[in-house]
């Protein structure tokens, strides 16, 4: 009996296939043009087909000649990092750099496990102060610092 266990190759293939299908689906509306006058759809469709073929090849190879299991995936750090980044995006314009960064650092710190609350608070304040110093005063980047009233 064939032992089919979805592993690294299998999922890579699926990932490539997904991107290929989405790419081809979106590109269907672009005109292909002809070889001597490539339309906007020409190159994307070509890439989509190649990517899809590679994806199929990977899946086929995984099924026929075995696959390596995907290692341990730790969801926690990734989730908190993404939440931290999104929080920055949501708060930077209404709340300004200082408050937004304190929130971002606090959330990012949750991605790891071994920081105490006081430590995180100090780190957040220090990083916020440093960022204002570097990005606002030294580099003069257009960033809101405090909440817009």
């Amino acid at each position, binding site marked *: 009996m064939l032992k089919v266990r979805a592993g690294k190759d299998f999922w890579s293939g699926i990932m490539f296939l997904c991107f290929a299908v989405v790419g081809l689906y979106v590109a269907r509306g672009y005109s292909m043009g002809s070889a001597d006058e490539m339309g*906007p759809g020409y190159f994307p469709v070509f890439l989509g087909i190649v990517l899809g073929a590679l994806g199929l090849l990977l899946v086929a190879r995984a099924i026929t000649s075995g696959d390596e299991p995907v290692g341990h995936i730790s969801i926690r750090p990734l989730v908190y990092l993404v939440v931290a980044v999104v929080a920055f995006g949501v708060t930077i314009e209404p709340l300004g750099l200082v408050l937004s960064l304190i929130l971002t650092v606090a959330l990012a710190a949750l991605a790891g496990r071994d920081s105490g609350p006081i430590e995180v608070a100090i780190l957040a304040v220090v990083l916020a102060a440093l960022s204002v110093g570097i990005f606002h005063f030294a580099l003069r980047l257009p960033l809101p610092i405090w909440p817009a009233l």
Partner: protein
Amino acid sequence: MDFLNNLATGFSVALTVTNLLYCFVGALLGTLVGVLPGIGPVTTVAMLLPFSFTLPPESALIMLAGIYYGAQYGGSTTAILVNIPGEASSVVTTIDGHQMARAGRAGPALGIAALGSFFAGCIATILVVVAAPPLASIALSFGPAEYFSLMVCGLVAAIVLARGSVIKALGMVVLGLMFGIVGTDINSGVRRMTFGFRGLADGIEFVALSMAIYGLADIALNLGKKEDNAEVHSKIGRVWPSWADIKYCIPAVLRGTTLGSILGVLPGGGALLAAFAAYTLEKKVARKPRHFGHGDIRGVAAPESANNAGAQTSFIPMLTLGIPSNPTMAMMIGAMMIHGISPGPRVMTDRPGLFWGLIVSMWLGNLMLVVLNLPLVGMWVKLLRMPYRFLYPSIVVFCCIGTYTVNSNLFDVYVMAFFAVFGYVCVKLDCEPAPLILGFVLGPMMEENLRRSLLLSRGDSMIFLQEPISLFFLIVSVGLLLVVALPTIRKTREEAMQE
């Protein structure tokens, strides 16, 4: 003489106070991130990319370059003293370097690493000066067909030299090309693959993509690993190696420099590959190879020379052809584009100050690095104790602010969050992100050159085989792919990668 004129131009740019300062800042930052495990030059260059916008282009590139070669110096310090590579390209240095440290010879190991790197840096810089102008003038005569085939060749070589599965690397390149052409098509004005997001009209922001993959995804990976408590050998002793050590190492340094210089130029090469290859070569040619792994000083000298030589010569294809050989070079191209400079053979003639200034600054930077590294090694050791839990929130902050300020566009921040997840998944599936980044940078150029070639030939794709230079690049590409496809060679490749 042209040669001297060029150098004079270079010195006049590199020796201004501002540029000297940025060269120093780059070298210092490079050493710093090289020393710190968990953050490498690619991440740092990605983090500083958006802020380099505030500098003049010369200073920006000088600083970013300094980070790359500075990290080659810093990485060896961690490798030798802690047995953790501070930077990927110093992985092999841990083997013999740490054994030397345990035997109380940390000083000479650090010394020979710095001196070997410096020697290699000088030679490689001269090589860039000599090789760049003829290469650029050849490249100037390239038509779109030649350029297209050259890019194919570059990407194929990057795949062949990448770790792991060739099919996956190929897939990552194609995916990178696809991501690269998202946005408004310059010819038809059609917004491609934007999914209706206005934020994607100008394409996927390179800074957001590279920070997501080399900043955030990297953090997620590091946090997922168990932290190992490494012993720090802070007793260093005399840093200057003895004359006997130096004499013993000279051949190794020369071999490392040569090999590193060659491998640096190759696409997919650069510092990392150079170090691995140099160590393997040393073991092959040594009369008593059994010493390797037990603190042979040549096992430090050769890879450290090679990685620095490779770091320098990888600038050659980037500066003369506009083709990145590794992700750091892709970032340099990104930096040029942020400043409105289109990379390619014209950079040298259109902006001689930038071109020669950068090269001369690389030599000056190497000089600064020897000074930074040898006497200050004690200070770097203290930095090693900086826990990662303080470091990574700072990276997150930099990534957020950086991505936001490139275009003052919040959408880029969310794009970064998306690609952070994507980057994490890729690495977990053994899909190397480096080919993706190279494909991303080359995507629009490749499409444009393909379009122009086919326009010239009236739709006849034989043009790529009829032009001799283009044919040559394609033959090389096919040859490389065949080489990895053949089972016997694949086996040795896997063995070589494992060493």
